[in-house]
């Protein structure tokens, strides 16, 4: 089963990376969701698998009787799921807002801050106000 899970995790990582390499930010977002699932599974499997024995302490006992599942990776994965959800929700808001402002979900067209031609940097649109258009001085420019 561990081997099969390792392969499944590999498939999840491959698909999510392929999606994250897409220039469509929606597909990027799908990749992000799949990747958090892959990583959670990876941590969980790394803590070894135990079937049918949740990490609980029976009433009247002070410690689990017999072997129970590893509790630590479960706690970590629980945290990771919630954080992953927070990340997704924020990214989703960001994608939505970006589309509303720029009218595109293509990451190659989102070039307000880093235009392909740097001389066309539109600082006004970044909320930076009218920046000084003069280039920074260099030693060469300074003469001599």
């Amino acid at each position: 089963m561990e081997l099969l899970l390792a392969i499944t995790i590999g498939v999840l990582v491959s698909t999510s990376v392929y999606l994250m390499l897409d220039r469509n930010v929606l597909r990027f977002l799908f990749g992000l969701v799949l990747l958090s699932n892959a990583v959670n599974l990876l941590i969980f499997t790394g803590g070894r698998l135990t079937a049918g024995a949740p990490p609980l302490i029976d009433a009247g006992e002070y410690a689990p009787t017999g072997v129970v599942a590893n509790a630590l990776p479960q706690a970590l994965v629980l945290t990771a799921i919630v954080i992953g959800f927070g990340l997704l929700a924020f990214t989703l808001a960001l994608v939505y807002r970006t589309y509303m402002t720029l009218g595109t979900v293509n990451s190659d067209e989102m070039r307000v801050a880093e235009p392909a031609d740097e001389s066309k940097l539109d600082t006004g649109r970044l909320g930076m106000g009218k920046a000084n258009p003069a280039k920074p001085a260099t030693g060469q420019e300074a003469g001599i």
Partner: protein
Amino acid sequence: MADDYPKVDRVMGGAAGWISIAFPSILFLYFLGLLPQIALGPQVHGIDWVPSLGINLSVLLDGLSMTFVLLITGIGAAVTLYSARYLGQHPDYPRFVSYLLMFMVGMLGLVLADNLIMLFVFWEITTIASYLLIGFNADSAKSRRSALQALLVTGTGGLILLGGMIVLGNVAGTFQLSEILTQGDMLRAHPWYLAILLLFLAGTFTKSAQVPFHFWLPNAMAAPTPVSAYLHSATMVKAGIFLMARMNPALGGTDAWFWILTLFGGVTAVFASVMAMRQTDIKQVLAYTTLMALGTLTMFLGAGTHYAIMAAMLFLVVHSLYKAALFLMIGIVDHATGTREAGVLGGLSKAMPLTGLAAALAAISMAGIPPMVGFIGKEFMYKAGLGLEGFGAFWVTIMAFAASVMMFAVGGIVALKPFRGDLRPTPTEPHEGPWPMLAGPLVLGALSLIFGLVPGVLGYYLVGPATHAVFGEVREVHLYLWGGVNMALILSLLTFLAGWLVYRRHEAIRTRLAAFEARNPVDFDAGWDRLLEGFKAFAAWQTRLIQNGSLQRYMAVTFGTFVVLVGGTYLIKGAFRSGLSLTTEGIHPVQWAVLGLIAAGAMLTVWTHSRMTAVAAMGVTGIGVALIFIMFSAPDVAITQLLVEVLVVVLVSVVMLRLPYLPRRSKATFRAGHAMIAGGMGLVTTFLMISVLATDFDRRLTTFFEAASYPEAYGRNIVNVILVDFRALDTFGEVTVVAIAAIAAFALLRGMSTRRKPEEES
């Protein structure tokens, strides 16, 4: 020059001036009092600073550091006194003084350090102070460029030097200089000796401006004249000389040491003396003669015999005395006449007799004429050169001869020509300098004469102990003015003759050199600019390549790097391990089905170009993962996963109602390169997972939680106890992250309605 700024009314620079004069003066007197002790033997004092790294604040006071300390504080006192008058009414004078004092502290620390790392820290302080002082006239683009050039050249050398120090410290097992200096035989035989030597010399050659790193020093003359006299002639540029002298017992005496130092030193000395003849600005002439002196010192340190080191130490003192005096003198002339051009100045001796006297004393010492101490310095250089063997004797003697001839001629150019003959018209009416500016050059000039008359004192207290410290063993040092008629004296007489001829024809020589320079394609200064332009172009190129603003490119680089580095390490190290059984027996059909669901959901998400199918497929994968959690005893995780998965599907679906459709699939949408990177990531992860599963599992933490969960935290659900008790701060952090994400998302979405309107209207 010094007059075109709004004056501030201060007497002798005000409080800043008095402090700056008192500091070096008091230190000078203090160290002068220690002189008799140090003449008998070196002293080491220290306290631990960073003991775990072997870095101590310890002081090594021997003849070498004593000589430098007295030069730094003594000339420092003269220079600060001079500056208080020269720049005392400058609005930025307090800033100037603080840089100067910062330099003084750095330089003193440098020469007194007994720890290599400490030495390096002070070394860099002098570099920074030099940068600030060269760029003191920050309004001038020339000053700024010169300052930056000096900083970059000496700073780069300093970093290379640090590398050398770390290698040396590891080889020697200590960073304490006093311990390293006793390990010379071991170090010279060590396989890393040459590497250490070259790294050290990169630092000292840049700092002491040896060819081909010399070009920053003449440019550094953009600094105010007291700074040129102090940093860029008497002290800072000799830091490289100091370090070579300091390391001589540990690194010196090999063939590599001999040839590198004598060749570079000799070439620097002669190149610089020719360049000095070319200049018309007297300050530039002095700058190039300083280069010449630095080359000469390097050459004699390289020669390495007892006599050669004695000659170097003697010349070190001699040069500092006359060169500081000459720089300060030209500052007075500049102040009084408004020009430093050799061709314009003449006949100043009537108007400025005391300045002329100081100039004459210093220049006679520089020319090496008896009874000045400069004569003794030159005699000992010739004796040291003649005492070498083979080609070394020829090379060193010839180079020293050539340099001495030029020094004689230059002495005439800077001190004789401006003062004799008829008074020539200058931009302002010449007048004698005020006493604070005259005191320094006069005292320094007088010392050149006094030490020439009583050389024994200089030999016993300074040159002798310094030579012992550098040479590594104690031998008698005896300085004398008259050594009888010998080869050195004959060479001296020849020097005077040749020097006089060069002086008589120096204007013709200058014209020839200027013509040659106009045709000469090799220009180090311009080459430096091209180097910097090259760096900038390279930086811009690689930024465009790696950070071209495309998210796709960033992701590809990040994942690609992961695949290559982790996968490559795997292959090279043969790290793959597998203790897993490859059989699929005993796997329940339901488990097969769940794994199939996960994989199918993921692949469908990639394949489909329908938004709703993708969301549904993602949901299938998420629920498959939840089922795995249930199967393997993680009910809490499974519940959370199911909840979150449902929320994700709902949220994404809602948002997508406002977003455009995915592009329709076409042949062009399959990206082979990206598929390879993605496949590589999957493969590496799978192999990594298999290897992790094959290692022994360390259950210590889990065992602790299982044992402590009920007795300490009174909880029977161990996962819950970990979350809310043992790792409660983590959980608190998690809640905070989610809250911040919510606030940020809220801010993003809320601002939209108001910001969108004006654009729609327009």
